[in-house]
């Protein structure tokens, strides 16, 4: 009671005014609120699913890491029946296949993207865009069959030629006599090289699409500036389009690298499994993490299953890191930002 009756002048006027920003009600209409909640929910669920996969794989890996420790990364053979297993060889194989795939896909994707965005006439352009998109729609099993039945008989001759002429470089060496006639079941078949070609066809459309999109966003003002100075079209591309698209080139390449690392079925069809650590992609036999999992999953005991899931976990972490790096590079570059 007395508090309420206290006279107003009893409160001394504050010397300094402490300003607190007032709260502002965005006053969104109901439709915006609903959209916001739904979009946020779906966005979060993507992260939750992603996280759940990681946590699941991580938990499944614990027994394997406990049992084999760091030797899981250094052991090359995979003999669960002898209690010896590790992913050294399959990791090397995974990266070899991916490297071959990127060596082939990168120049093709870059040239395709440049041709489509810079040179092709409008009608040809839309046709080519849909053809490249169609390439992405071909199931990987089909690429695998193509690689095995159509590509391999031709590619062994290329591998033989490379071995004959560049065999002194360790990367192109094959452990066989280069003068022996190459026949279908020779040492050149079922190699990381052939699997890599098939994988390159699968990752090419994604790389080309990302690159084409950033190229077409290169500012028209800068393009015209270059041309008005008397530049050739190629000079303009080198000065304006490629620097602008650098982020997209790197990002698109790394996104496809992430996919190339995980590609399974085409690799399983083409390679003949081998578990030695080697950097000779032209030679028969290799294995990748995903091919290992696909090949051994059916007859695995629970301990073996844990080991396979651990291999999967390692691949998951690697591709996650690569894709995050790619996304960061794209976002940081000018081509990722909304250039005016």
């Amino acid at each position, binding site marked *: 009671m007395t508090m309420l009756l206290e006279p107003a002048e009893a409160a001394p006027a504050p010397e300094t005014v402490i300003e607190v920003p007032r709260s502002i009600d965005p006053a969104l209409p109901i439709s915006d609120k609903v959209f916001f909640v739904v979009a946020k929910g779906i966005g979060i669920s993507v992260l939750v699913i992603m996280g759940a996969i990681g946590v699941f794989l991580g938990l499944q890996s614990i027994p394997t890491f406990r049992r084999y420790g760091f030797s899981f990364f250094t052991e090359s053979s995979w003999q669960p029946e002898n209690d010896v297993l590790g992913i050294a060889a399959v990791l090397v194989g995974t990266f070899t296949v991916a490297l071959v795939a990127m060596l082939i896909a990168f120049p093709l994707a870059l040239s395709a993207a440049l041709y489509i965005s810079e040179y092709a006439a409008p009608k040809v352009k839309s046709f080519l865009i849909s053809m490249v998109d169609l390439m992405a729609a071909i199931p990987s099993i089909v690429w695998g069959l193509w690689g095995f039945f159509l590509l391999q008989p031709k590619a062994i001759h290329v591998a033989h030629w490379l071995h004959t002429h560049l065999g002194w470089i360790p990367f192109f060496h094959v452990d066989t006599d280069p003068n022996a006639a190459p026949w279908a079941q020779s040492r050149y078949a079922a190699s990381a090289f052939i699997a890599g070609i098939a994988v390159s066809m699968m990752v090419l459309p994604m790389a080309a699409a990302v690159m084409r999109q950033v190229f077409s966003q290169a500012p028209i*003002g800068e393009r015209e500036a270059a041309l008005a100075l*008397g*530049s050739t079209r190629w000079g303009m591309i080198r*000065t304006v389009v490629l620097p602008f698209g650098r982020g997209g080139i790197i990002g698109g390449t790394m996104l496809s690298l992430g996919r190339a690392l995980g590609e399974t079925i085409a690799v399983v069809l083409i390679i003949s499994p081998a578990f030695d650590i080697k950097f000779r992609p032209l030679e028969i036999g290799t294995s990748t993490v995903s091919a290992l999992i696909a090949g051994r999953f059916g007859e695995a005991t629970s301990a073996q299953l844990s080991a396979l899931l651990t291999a999967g976990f390692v691949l998951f972490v690697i591709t996650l890191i690569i894709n995050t790096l790619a996304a960061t590079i794209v976002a940081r570059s000018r081509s990722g930002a909304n250039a005016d």
Partner: protein
Amino acid sequence: MTVIMDTSSGIGRPETGGGSLEARNISAWFGSNKVLERVSLDMPANTVTALIGPSGCGKSTFLRVLNRMHELVPSARLNGEVLLDGMDIYESGHRITETRKRIGMVFQKPNPFPAMSIADNVTAGLKLTGTRISRSDREDLIERSLTRASLWKEVKDRLKEPGAALSGGQQQRLCIARSLAVDPEVLLMDEPCSALDPTSTRRVEETIHEIRQQVTVVIVTHNMQQAARVSQQCAFFLAESGTPGGIVESGATKDIFGSPVDKRTEDYVNGRFG
């Protein structure tokens, strides 16, 4: 006027004077939409010609026809001739890159190459046209071009900074310096001051005054006072309801503003429409 062109590079050309440009019966289309009809205009050497008129009357299209930028739009077509020192630039056998080098262009929106330094922006035209230049010549050229564009004093201590770090007005003057560095005979300017503040606008106008001894200037502007200030001759473009654009009246600037013959010109220059 006869200019003996060193066609291998414009760099050795003494800064004696600009080229004369003459448009004959230029018609232009975008798809089936005709935007210019039989426009003829003589742009004598070492004069500043202003193209004025309301929006959408085809003056920017006309300007872009003059250095073959028009044909960059896939559906764009044209008819007529553009004579640079008496030679038709559209004649087959004339290399488009050479034509564009001789007829430079400054755009409405400043468009320096943002990743390049200020110095590299100035010499970008040389690099793009494959013109080699010695290091000391390069430094001379950078200073001379920036001075001609009245930007040298402001940037001489930060030539290594990226071109994008400059203010809008400075960027536009950098673009002018970049165009001047390849030593064009004609410089086309498409509303070069429409994105600039009054101070920058004044400096660009001063630049135009200074360079016209060496370069023929054709400028598109929406600003009547600017046209009156910078130009010696003037062409008034108009596209009346649904018809392609054309020149209503052209002549000495003082006549166009002082004693226009056509009623529509008089209305426009006195701000009664447009």
